[in-house]
């Protein structure tokens, strides 16, 4: 018999699909969860810490320390940038790894994965919803850092038109636009890692393991990126363009690194998204 013809009238009548309800539920569950809020709060503390230390010591950095650190005393708007630079190597991949590693493995560990699938959520749709949550976190994290940084910066330091790396100045509106671009750049840069985390998460029912593996991969990629002997490999590492956002602070904006980063992240997303789907679509849910 043909199952397509066999769909009963009642199901067909209510067949108007609402595929986005799960996305909404996923976002709400993720961002109302205490753990997520705590991670975002921890990220917000970083610029506050930097600003307070610079303010209290009152000393310039004499060119040492992370990028933009020396500019803070001159212009509070740089606090957010400095904090982003500080967070990119460790804190951002760490928090994103927690969210991405938890996606499937976390539901499996709770046992809720089986109930989502018999609801039925559909395996592809569940993966998409989970990845949407990861992507939303990848955007939320830098936005929180930048906003907290600008807030505390404006509070503790003078705010004036910003002198860009190219020597031009931009007003508050221009700076806001560039900050938004910067946050988007960091979010974009994290998409590849998010896809890796999603894939790792389909391999296990132990969320902590998936989280750790994801974070370790981010660290390993950055280490490889430091080794000059592996020059040929560097453009293929998903962390390679993580700090390449300086181009956004020139006038006119140089889009090269944005484009290359987007291409690279898209490739990682395609490969690891496909792997995650291949794994998850046929997986026996035994937890």
């Amino acid at each position: 018999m043909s199952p397509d013809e066999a769909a009963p009238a009642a199901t067909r009548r209510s067949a108007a699909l609402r595929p986005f309800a799960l996305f909404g539920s996923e976002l709400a569950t993720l961002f109302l969860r205490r753990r997520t809020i705590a991670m975002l709060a921890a990220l917000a503390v970083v610029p506050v810490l930097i600003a307070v230390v610079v303010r209290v010591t009152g000393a310039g950095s004499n060119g040492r320390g992370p990028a933009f650190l020396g500019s803070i005393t001159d212009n509070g708007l740089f606090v957010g940038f400095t904090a982003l630079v500080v967070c990119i190597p460790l804190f951002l991949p760490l928090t994103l790894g927690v969210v991405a590693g938890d996606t499937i493995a976390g539901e499996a560990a709770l046992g809720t994965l089986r109930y989502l699938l018999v609801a039925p959520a559909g395996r592809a749709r569940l993966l998409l919803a989970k990845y949407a949550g990861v992507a939303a976190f990848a955007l939320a994290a830098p936005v929180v850092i930048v906003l907290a940084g600008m807030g505390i910066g404006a509070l503790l330091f003078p705010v004036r038109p910003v002198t860009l790396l190219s020597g031009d100045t931009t007003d508050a509106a221009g700076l806001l636009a560039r900050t938004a671009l910067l946050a988007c750049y960091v979010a974009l840069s994290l998409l590849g890692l998010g896809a890796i985390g999603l894939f790792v998460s389909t391999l296990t029912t132990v969320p902590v393991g998936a989280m750790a593996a994801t974070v370790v991969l981010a660290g390993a990629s950055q280490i490889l990126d430091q080794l000059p002997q592996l020059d040929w490999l560097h453009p293929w590492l998903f962390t390679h363009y993580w700090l390449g956002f300086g181009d956004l602070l020139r006038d006119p904006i140089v889009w090269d690194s944005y484009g290359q980063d987007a291409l690279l992240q898209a490739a990682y997303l395609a490969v690891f998204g496909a792997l995650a789907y291949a794994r998850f679509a046929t997986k026996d849910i035994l937890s």
Partner: protein
Amino acid sequence: MTSAEPAAGPAGGASAILARGLTKRFGRRLAVDSVDLDVPRGSVFGFLGPNGSGKTTTIRMLLGLARPTAGQVELLGERMPRATATVLPRVGALVEGPALYPFLTARDGLSRLDAADPRSVSRTRGARVAEALERVGLTHAADKKAHAYSLGMRQRLGLAGALLRERELLVLDEPSNGLDPQGTREVRALIRRLADDGTTVFVSSHLLGEVEQLCSHVAVMRAGRLVMSGPLGELRAAGGRSAAVRTPDPDAAASVLAGLGLRPSVADGVVTADLGPGGDAHDGTEPAPESIVAALVAAGVRVRGFEVTTPSLEDRFVALTGEGFDVAG
């Protein structure tokens, strides 16, 4: 609403669950070995078996959570797992205990499950969730975070998830697990009410008493194989009734019983004989108990006691699945 009329046209089919040759192998271990299941629509079907006999693995395959190594499944007349998206909204399930989001309230957790199905209407979600909570008696705790729930409350919440919508089939794995006697009674009453409304209920359980009170049909698993499947009466009757006569004249009694076509045996002044399949629909090939007593009295046998015993479901269960520690079994 699609009511669960039996044999609802060519699409419906007469079976709520139909499995043929269902097999699952994990590495070298055969967890489920060519199981054939036929759960008639409208039945309350008890799925019995000791721990580790493959019940939950079978249920996982029925629901498309695990892929059968061999064999096929039809749920409500449609092939699984191909028809997952259209069939599962009509199936409520409790699989291997409830699973909750400890950081969500009961209400939010159920809403999330409801939202997971793209066919569920978001406008009525709140009302659906509230009704499901009401049905399992959790309304008062609906806005508590689930990590504060007791085992019984968790079980009820799991049931609420299965009852979020009008279901044609409920697959309930150990629904009374962790419930106190009142809770067990409530669950039993709930299942009975659902069954009266025409819902097919497929319930796995260790609690034989519960199955005996609830189910119209049973299937028994043992070490991955189905050892028996059919109406409850058939399972009980297959063991046969027996009559026991307590008398100081055992030899005389035995010869009377033999004269009635029975094969009596004597031990300790008690004469026993198998009466064959029992039930009220006695087929008449064996003498009725009352005629045995009459014959004994007519022959001058002093009857001190007469008893007809039907094997309990537990006796049959153990006979089919072996004693718990029976290594040879």
